[in-house]
């Protein structure tokens, strides 16, 4: 139709690329969890999922969302579906409000991500029924780290997306 269409990768390739980034982030999250030996984990997969839902709502599918969730459930030792449920919810709300989210400044986005991460971590604290001062400390630390790492994740994934989409 136009010259730009020729440069675009097929939707199939992009779909796989999104899936691969999700799986890689899941693996990194599992490895980080092993490395840090913390009860909570840095939610890299969740943040990656939020990015893809906000950036390309059409390309993110159920399959990769659920697969990355199941990977985390299996390797972090949770009941199957625990991560999947929260990922589906995160995807649903991200896609519902992605117009508003995109319009925010990066700092505001980081704040929103921090709130989502905070809720996400609370969800796991409730599931594991493990309330202690140290886990609250972990929760706060991981929330701050997540909000700080959001601009990095956003920048890296955006760069990759533009590279893959336009080859620039």
């Amino acid at each position, binding site marked *: 139709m136009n010259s*730009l269409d020729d440069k675009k990768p097929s939707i199939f390739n992009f779909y796989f690329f999104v899936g691969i980034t999700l799986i890689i982030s899941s693996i990194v999250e599992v490895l980080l969890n092993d490395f840090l030996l913390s009860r909570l984990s840095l939610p890299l997969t969740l943040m990656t999922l939020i990015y893809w839902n906000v950036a390309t*709502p*059409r390309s993110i599918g159920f399959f990769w969302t659920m697969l990355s969730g199941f990977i985390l*459930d*299996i390797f972090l030792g949770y*009941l*199957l579906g625990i991560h999947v*449920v929260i990922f589906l919810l995160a995807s649903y709300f991200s896609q519902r409000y992605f117009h508003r989210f995109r319009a925010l400044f990066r700092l505001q986005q980081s704040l929103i991500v921090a709130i989502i991460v905070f809720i996400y971590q609370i969800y796991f604290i409730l599931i594991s029924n493990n309330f202690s001062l140290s886990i609250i400390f972990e929760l706060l630390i991981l929330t701050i780290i997540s909000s700080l790492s959001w601009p990095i994740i956003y920048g890296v994934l955006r760069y990759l997306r533009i590279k893959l989409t336009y080859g620039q």
Partner: protein
Amino acid sequence: MFGGEHKQTDIAQTAIFTTGSMRASRFYPAIIFTFLIMYGDYSFDLSSKIRFVSSYLFTPFTQIEYLAKDSFNSFDSYFSSQKKLSEEINTLRNQIRDLENQNLALKNIKASLNELEELFDLSKSFQEREIFLGKITDYKKFPKELVLVETRTNKISKDMIAFNVFGLIGVIDELLNNSIKITPLHDASIKVPAKNSRTLENIIIVGTGKPKIFQIEEFKKNGDIKRGDEIISSGLGGRFPEGFLLGKVTEIKENDQSNFLLITVENTFDFSFGSTILFTKP
């Protein structure tokens, strides 16, 4: 020119006006499906089975860490052991070199001691005479052959003569501050009063300038001399002491136009040998 606008339009078309894939009509079944799986896991412990299978499947990957560690350790130990060995070899080489140096030094000391022993044996024949020792510091062949000896005494006088382990080897040429120049006995300028130990006939031997070779001066054709006769110093004139071997007759030549024989006397005294020189008055 319009490429940028074109792209923006395209992005707007593909992104802003999209509805997304996560519609409620898809979301609810997905949630129900997930809950079913959760229930299945809770009831039948599906996740442990999956974990077991996945751990079995991922065994080669999980072993990579250990394999890498083992490989690194064996690689490291190979090089560290090789390094240790090379260091040990170097240490041993240094030790060998030190021992060789020590051995050489000991050999030198032994040679010096032997030399001193022989010099002291020799000095017994000087009876009451004072003796002085000096260290050879230099040996020169040009412009004339001489040995430079370092001494710590100033009692050495020019009329003294020099001995090494072989015996009488030279005379003092020049006295310097803390050192002495010695001219060898075979120097052409040196004449030594001597005698044939067999016939006791007094003769004079002169140096030829060649190491270890002398000639008898003006020995008449009718004189009694044979090859192998030992020539010793006679002590006449008081310049050289009496009774020291100077050499053996090795060659006797006749010349029809002369009344004298041409007699060569040779010894085995090495002028530059050793490290110590003994000085005494004749």
